[in-house]
């Protein structure tokens, strides 16, 4: 029997109130059975948060279980604040990706900023020092002012937060498509380094150990953010604006230093970020992992405002807070460390032997649940999954039948047009707002290679990191699209010379109760699993973000992959741009006649249809192995994979992605003249890498020995020679400065219109963080 009783002034529990809390009748009945009585208002709030999709994974867990999660180098798989892999020399890497889609849709600046703050905390609570941030962004068409406002705000929010904390933002990916209108995706990833023996987990243990709230004070912000993340974005939700949280990167920096000092001090046994659902989820999850009871007194929680109720204190999502379980009798030492960093630490509860989750307000018990499995005791759903007929028809469409525009008679026109597509164009407008060099580890920063490379101090090694996902492919064929997301991320990392090691993922999907959405979800996860097995990159964690919808329906299913790879020698770090005239250009992999799902079709013809390119995972693995052998053999001057825009765009980028050091190139694609010209030039066949080399025979021999198709297709020239692609129909011949202008000026030009608007509302205008 449990003892909690309603507080004076608590609303009466009615079916309407239950519904408002997002619980179904079945779920409510389950709660009543669990308690053997009517819940108090506080209890209803707690369960509403814990059983939200965001915390409980009630729709997604069974599917997620199919993912491969182990390898000899995996030290911590899914289930902790972040995954951890060993990288040798007693060092490990902790990394995790997380979404902040709905908060960013409502308030782009604070939404994105607090997303960065949250993922940073997930990583440093593992005992790791963050060394890099990444961000994966999806927006609607840049043609609309609202989208430009969102882009400007999100980018500034990400930059201001990471820059202030002093963690370099080094890589990411961005795509624009009307499918994301009204529901942008903002996924942030953090990577940290730790010594293996300093790894700490968020597992409460030790009866009598004090539970301590650390960091910022608790205010009324973001109450019910976790449930908010589990709803559709509607106009009604726009009205729920007071839920936005304001980030304080300065406090985060202090909290980062204090937490690492705390973990190393030996005074604590567990630490966890108070993220979504704040104190409630952090305390319940820590208790559950340790299979212990816990009791918390809300009167002891340091608050920012007077008169906060237990309900508000438990569900607040005030930022920059941590929950710590200290060793018994060590609370004074914990406080001393926090005081040194000008932060508060208050004992708010303790670990207890009795298997209950109890919240008191002074002497009054306001919530009490039996057992220690509050989060996983939530209902599990196995939603129906069926592909819609429309999706089948879309995929079956013969896209080769789409007539080319008259202007396409000159392939140079098409290339130039594609280079201006915001999805393809240089993202420098974005990443020059991110400090990418602080902490002096950045060997290759954003825009210069297919992934970012960071050296690991004290070793010869380096990490390569990248996010990726083409949601359009997943939309057209979720299984194949899921595979490609992993394969492309792995290829990107391999192009810099790194062995792909493991992934984290952020599954951005629509409403899982719609059979066609759940089909996308299930198939995409299966595809991701296929690729992770084939490429030996297990999943170490991630995040599920459902209900990403706008009035037109779900956004593209977007399982963003965050890949981590390891270079044994940082000196092998390889960029994407050609540098030495006279070098041979080698294509690893094969051109095909595939055109479905391409940026070419979407941007030039406004068509999203056809089957996405096939993904041969065995071939991808061989390609990566061959490429890495060539790089390690010292034969490769540059490497770049073919992705959106195909081989023509990839060649253009190799010539002018580094605008200060352009080159030209002469390429002959005659071996593929039997295929449709536009498919060869702009199709997005997978498993292709362009590299430049002074020793083509060595590269070709290595490719052959790995069973990878390879051909010398041209030569690097000086920039005056332009880019020339012959051998198909009409020769493609463009000046490098012209394509450089198209590629580098597209985003600045589009965003120039938005800057005035975004700075006007810039909270930092009044001073504040720059």
């Amino acid at each position, binding site marked *: 029997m449990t003892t909690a009783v309603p507080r004076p002034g608590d609303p009466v529990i009615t079916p309407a109130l239950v519904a408002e809390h997002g619980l179904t009748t079945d779920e409510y009945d389950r709660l009543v059975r669990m308690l053997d009585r009517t819940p108090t208002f506080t209890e209803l709030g707690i369960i509403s948060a814990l059983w939200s999709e965001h915390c409980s994974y009630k729709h997604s867990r069974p599917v997620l279980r199919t993912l491969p999660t182990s390898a000899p180098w995996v030290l911590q798989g899914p289930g902790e604040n972040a995954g951890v892999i060993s990288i040798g020399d007693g060092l490990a890497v902790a990394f995790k990706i997380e979404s902040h889609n709905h908060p960013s849709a409502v308030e782009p600046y604070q939404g994105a900023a607090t997303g960065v703050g949250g993922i940073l905390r997930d990583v440093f609570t593992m005992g790791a020092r963050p060394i890099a941030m990444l961000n994966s962004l999806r927006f609607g068409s840049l043609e609309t002012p609202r989208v430009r406002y969102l882009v400007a705000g999100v980018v500034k929010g990400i930059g201001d937060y990471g*820059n202030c904390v002093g963690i370099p933002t080094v890589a990411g990916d961005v795509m624009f498509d009307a499918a994301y209108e009204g529901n942008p995706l903002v996924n942030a990833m953090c990577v940290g380094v730790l010594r293996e023996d300093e790894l700490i987990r968020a597992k409460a243990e030790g009866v009598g150990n004090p539970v301590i709230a650390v960091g910022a004070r608790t205010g009324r912000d973001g109450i019910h953010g976790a449930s908010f993340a589990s709803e559709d974005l509607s106009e009604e939700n726009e009205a729920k604006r007071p839920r936005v949280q304001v980030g304080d*990167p*300065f406090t985060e920096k202090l909290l980062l230093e204090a937490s690492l000092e705390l973990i190393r001090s030996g005074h604590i046994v567990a630490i966890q970020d108070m993220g979504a659902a704040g104190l409630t989820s952090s305390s319940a999850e820590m208790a559950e992992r340790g299979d212990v009871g816990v009791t918390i007194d809300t009167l002891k929680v340091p608050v920012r405002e007077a008169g906060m109720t237990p309900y508000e204190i438990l569900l607040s999502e005030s930022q920059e807070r941590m929950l710590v379980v200290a060793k018994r009798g060590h609370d004074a030492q914990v406080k001393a460390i926090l005081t040194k960093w000008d932060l508060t630490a208050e004992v708010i509860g303790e670990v207890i032997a009795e298997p209950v989750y109890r919240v008191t307000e002074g002497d009054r018990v306001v919530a009490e649940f039996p057992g220690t499995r509050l989060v996983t005791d939530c209902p599990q759903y196995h939603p129906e999954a069926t592909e819609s007929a429309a999706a089948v028809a879309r995929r079956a469409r013969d896209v080769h039948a789409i007539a080319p525009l008259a202007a396409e008679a000159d392939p140079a026109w098409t290339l130039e047009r594609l280079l201006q597509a915001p999805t393809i164009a240089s993202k420098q407008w974005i990443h020059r707002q991110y400090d990418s060099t*602080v902490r002096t580890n950045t*060997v290759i920063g954003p825009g210069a290679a297919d992934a970012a490379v960071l050296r690991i101090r004290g070793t010869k090694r380096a990490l390569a990191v990248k996010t990726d996902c083409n949601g359009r492919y997943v939309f057209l064929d979720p299984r194949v699209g899921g595979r490609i997301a992993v394969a492309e991320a792995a290829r990107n990392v391999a192009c810099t010379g790194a062995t792909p090691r493991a992934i984290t993922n952020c599954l951005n999907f629509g409403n899982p109760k719609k059979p066609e959405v759940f089909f996308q979800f299930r198939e995409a996860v299966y595809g991701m699993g296929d690729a992770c097995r084939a490429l030996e990159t297990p999943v170490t964690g991630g995040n599920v973000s459902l209900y990403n919808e706008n009035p037109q329906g779900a956004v593209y299913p977007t399982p963003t992959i965050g890949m981590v790879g390891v270079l044994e020698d*940082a000196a092998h770090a390889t960029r994407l741009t050609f540098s030495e005239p006279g070098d041979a250009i080698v294509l690893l992999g094969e051109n095909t006649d595939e055109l479905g799902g391409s940026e070419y079709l979407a941007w030039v013809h406004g068509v999203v249809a056809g089957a996405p390119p096939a993904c041969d995972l065995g071939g991808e693995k061989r390609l990566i192995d061959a490429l890495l052998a060539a790089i390690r053999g010292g034969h490769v001057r540059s490497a770049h994979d073919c992705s959106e825009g195909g081989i023509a765009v990839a060649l253009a980028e190799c010539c002018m992605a580094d605008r200060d050091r352009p080159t030209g190139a002469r390429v002959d694609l005659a071996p593929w003249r039997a295929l449709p010209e536009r498919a060869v030039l702009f199709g997005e066949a997978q498993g292709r890498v362009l590299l430049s080399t002074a020793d083509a025979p060595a590269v070709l021999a290595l490719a052959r020995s790995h069973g990878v198709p390879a051909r010398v297709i041209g030569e690097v020239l000086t920039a005056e020679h332009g880019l020339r692609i012959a051998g198909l129909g009409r020769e493609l011949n463009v000046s490098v400065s012209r394509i450089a202008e198209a590629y580098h000026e597209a985003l600045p030009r589009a965003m120039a219109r938005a800057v005035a608007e975004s700075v006007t509302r810039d909270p930092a205008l009044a001073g*504040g*963080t720059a």
Partner: protein
Amino acid sequence: MKVGVISFPGSNCDEDALLAVVEHLDEDAVLLWHKDHDLQGADIVILPGGFSYGDYLRAGAIARFSPIMQEVVAHAKRGGPVVGICNGFQIACEAGLLPGALLRNASLQFRSMPVTLRVENTETIFTRAAEPGAHLIMPIAHGDGRYTADEDVLDRLEGDGRIVFRYVDALGAASAAANPNGSMRNIAGVANETGTVVGLMPHPERALEPLLGSTDGLVLFRSLLAGVHA
């Protein structure tokens, strides 16, 4: 020689500056805590980059009142060398160790990118090992780097050779295109009257290794030694 690097709350380049001295000059360096009143015998003080006190109100405005700043100011008054990098430059200006102020970039955006600097004066503690007119490439990463002072102050600085670095383009011109933040007269760094306090927005501590793309910051750090060991 011993270098003291101040750790303000919110400093995030303090370790980079410390490593620059320890790994690349092979000299002693200590982090000095903002709440202390002791320079621990440091011969040279570095005010590092970052966001001291979150840069709330104005970059550097609150940090200048940190307890340790009293010692730093006294050290500077005695002729002791002080180098302010990025946020450290902002703090030095706020503290009155250097003239002028650093305002929001004219673009109103943070700028993270490599820039080319021209060394305008080789008679300061931070440039005496450099060639006059040398071009140095190193990163900037700031939102408030627009150096601003009254015209007559600028004229005086110019006349006294206290403009230490300017942003220039590949051809060596101090052009508007080469100026990443709209600073007056393309100023990237200035010195006090005696050349013993130097502040600059770019980050020489991020340009010390070929692996990281530039070694042009070395000559500046080596300048710190030139006087001591000469």
